[in-house]
């Protein structure tokens, strides 16, 4: 069965790229995607996609490295 994925929202490509590099260095596989979130409050943003099981740890790593995670 395919593991569910989680999307972590960040504000920019730069933050998303740095976030992905950090997560990979910490053994967390991830991908990066630009999303529109047109219906949401942010509009254009980026998501760092990780497995649902590693979302909490991933967000912790991002925040501790100064990368703002959007809610």
């Amino acid at each position, binding site marked *: 069965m395919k593991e569910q994925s989680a999307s972590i929202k960040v504000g920019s490509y730069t933050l998303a*790229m740095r976030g992905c590099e950090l997560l990979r260095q910490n053994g967390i596989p991830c991908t990066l995607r630009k999303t529109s979130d047109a219906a*949401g409050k*942010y*509009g*254009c943003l980026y998501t760092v996609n990780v497995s649902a099981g590693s979302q909490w740890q991933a967000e912790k790593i991002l925040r501790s490295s100064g990368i703002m995670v959007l809610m």
Partner: protein
Amino acid sequence: MIYLDNAATTWPKPRGTAAAIAEVLSLRGANPGRGSYRMAELSSETVYRCRVRAAGFFGAAAPENVIFTPSCTHSINYVLKGILSPGDHVIISDMEHNAVTRPVAQLARRGVQYSAARVHEGDPEATVAEFRRCMRANTRLIFCTHASNVFGIRLPVAEIGELAHRNGILFGVDCAQSAGTADIDLRSLHADFLCMPAHKGLYGIMGLGLLIVNCDKQLRTVIEGGTGSLSGVNVQPDFLPDRLESGTLNVPAIAALDVGIRFIESVGRERLEAHEMSLVCRAYDALAAMPECLLYTQRPQTGTHVPLLSFNIAGIPSDEAARRLGEMEIAVRAGLHCAGDAHRKMGTQSGGAVRICPSVFTSAEEIDGLLDAIPLIRQDA
């Protein structure tokens, strides 16, 4: 042609620069940070890789602390106008380029106060003491050049930065003439802001500047607009680099800058600086031995100067000397070099000076070519 106008822009560029630009135009030509298709991702990646490289080269904490701007002048304006408010006081030096003096003069018309600290060539303690003397209770920022673009004199920026931070004052440095040549580490300079162009000592191309930020203080924005992020709200993002990067970035120039920094890393910055300094000293020693030549600084040396120098030939206006050298296929820059204050300080404001600046590609034979040409100019006069 003997090209000695590298202080205006370096030429030629490293091998690989033109190819990197061509690759962007042909394969990575999409707008970075906007689309989600493959070419847009490649464009964004090009920008990000250069950001990482520049951050590493200058000791920035993270790639987002590297802001791409249209020029060094823009970067300087972002800092000065992003910090200073009416009633604030800023200290500059008496050797600044117009990129600093003009925005400061404009801010002064809106109620910002400023002082120009005197630079003492070869005496860092005296220079720092001058900055200290200029400090007031409302001093918000010290912003100065790392090295004079006319005379090559370096300011003791690490000591000035330390003084600023000890007194709770922000510190910014114009590295237009030093980036790529001098050793620059954001943290060891105690700098909050570094401003520089891509097209000089970093061997990039025109149309790109860098602003490297090392403090939590948010700059007020000078320009707002599209950033490709948080587009649903009509306020500028509060995170870097987007906060200060409205509008489409100059990706071809960013790709060229990446090549430029890699080139410096491959040659070795210290080796590059030593080569250029040896050429400037070769020119200085020969010019000093010519009775008709006027020099304005001490013999340049690493640490107190960057490798460039200005001189005059007695009885020949600087622009006339540059014109005649140009006819002999020797490229130099005459006049005031957009730095009237520096010329006033050194007493060359009436006729300017002839400035020469080698690059890593300049040879000793080319310097000798310049030196051989000077007596010929005298003969023609």
